[in-house]
């Protein structure tokens, strides 16, 4: 695969949220507003980029039998940095994302890419993979949160769209997250089915 393919596969074909169903916990929890989704996406891109680069560079010296603890230590260091940076420079976002920033350490997407990709591929390919997967995850979060914010709070990026009394509060409550994610996934599967049939 070329570097371009490594980048583009994460966006649609192997989208971490919609295709691989990874990282669903933060996706359900923080997609109550587009602001949160963008913040979470940016934090994930930063951690994924750093961890993929370092793990790929160290892949020949990490002993196979203890590779998972090593990955976690590397990922946790970067998450701690991002956590401190967000605390210092974006306090509002930091408060609204809350526990889900430190929880990036156990985000399946990041450990998954380390195990499935960075530990077997070169640094440049791992960087492209991290960027693609990170952007794919961010786009998925923004898609889910757009539906939830507009339908549940009547706003988009904080701008009011629907008049008072119209939005259904349920959509920004936990059930709304499950319903939105499920319906979007069903819709995307249907779309993909259509496209693959056309190609065949």
């Amino acid at each position, binding site marked *: 695969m070329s570097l371009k393919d490594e980048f583009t596969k994460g966006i649609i074909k192997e989208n971490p949220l919609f295709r691989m169903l990874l990282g669903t916990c933060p996706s359900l929890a923080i997609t109550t507003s587009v602001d949160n989704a963008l913040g979470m996406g940016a934090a994930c891109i930063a951690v994924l980029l750093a961890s993929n680069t370092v793990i790929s560079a160290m892949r020949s010296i990490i002993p196979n039998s203890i590779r998972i603890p090593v990955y976690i230590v590397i990922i946790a260091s970067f998450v701690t940095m991002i956590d401190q940076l967000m605390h210092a420079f974006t306090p509002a976002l930091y408060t609204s994302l809350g526990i889900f920033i430190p929880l990036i350490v156990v985000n399946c997407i990041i450990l998954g890419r380390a195990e499935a990709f960075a530990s077997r591929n070169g640094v440049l390919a791992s960087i492209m993979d991290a960027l693609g997967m990170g952007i794919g995850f961010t786009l998925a979060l923004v898609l889910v949160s757009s539906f939830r914010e507009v339908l549940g709070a009547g706003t988009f990026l904080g701008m009011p769209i629907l008049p008072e009394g119209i939005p*259904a509060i349920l959509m920004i409550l936990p059930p709304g997250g499950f319903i939105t994610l499920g319906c979007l996934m069903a819709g995307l599967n249907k779309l993909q089915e259509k496209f693959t049939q056309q190609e065949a």
Partner: protein
Amino acid sequence: MTPIKKLLQVTSSPHIHSTESISSAMRDVLLALVPALLVSLYFFRVPALLLVLSCVSSAYIAEYLCLKAMGKQTPVKEQSAVVTGLLLAFCLPPTLPLWMGALGSAFGIVIAKHLFGGLGYNIFNPALIGRCFLLASFPVAMTHWITPIDGVSSASPLGMLKESMEGSLPSVTQLLVGNVSGSLGETSAVAILIGGLYLWYRGHIDLRIPASFIGTVFVLTFIIAMVNGKGISCPLFHLFAGGLFLGAFFMATDWVTTPVTKLGRILFGIGCGSLVVLIRVKGGYPEGVAYSILLMNVVTPLLDRYTKARVFGREQRNG
């Protein structure tokens, strides 16, 4: 080879067919809901009629679109969507904006019924899911009650009990007739009882569920009233106020989402009754019939499994 002459025509069971079908059963349920519908139209007038029409038509349209989208048989063959829409309208406040009723109805049909596989496969009662969706989404509109006929804003009887406005509580007679504020079809205990008994007479519902449901509520509130030194009026009030009768006769007896074994049904009713009392007495909401039935819907498969009858001739479970 000469063909062997058929001496005996053999067909597989069942050998006796009933004329009863899903459509005829649904017609009976609709008929059983007519008394409560008439009472609610009398007490809440035109807004009630419009809300019922919007819920029913939205449920029917949602059902049609779902069947079409999933490539199943259209037009809609049976009236279960109409029953869902009507039951949902019955547990909504009469002043609710029409589009909210329609939205709740469509939500119940699409999310709670067809996404789970359609009629016969849904885990939860679609009408109650519609109601809970509306209550979570539009808490203000869903808790705005009016008095019958004059239409003045007023708390619901159970709300008054929760806020300990003991002085303004309606009498038990008023609750029986339905001359109190509340959801469209739940106010009149007598009208619902007539419909429920009709369904029982026609063999569509098993009295085990409503009896154990209502009985549990009565026994528990009786004990609570005795401990607190209140009279018999308190348990009676709990029986006839709110949606207990509507829930017990029409929603806790839903064929799809409740147990099929006899013991399972009794346990189901006891569970519902205990949850209702728990929510009403200790919970944050004044009314808990909808949530209690939905919570018991979840354990229905377990109840069915643990109360399965022993097959005759097989070894004993503990022997």
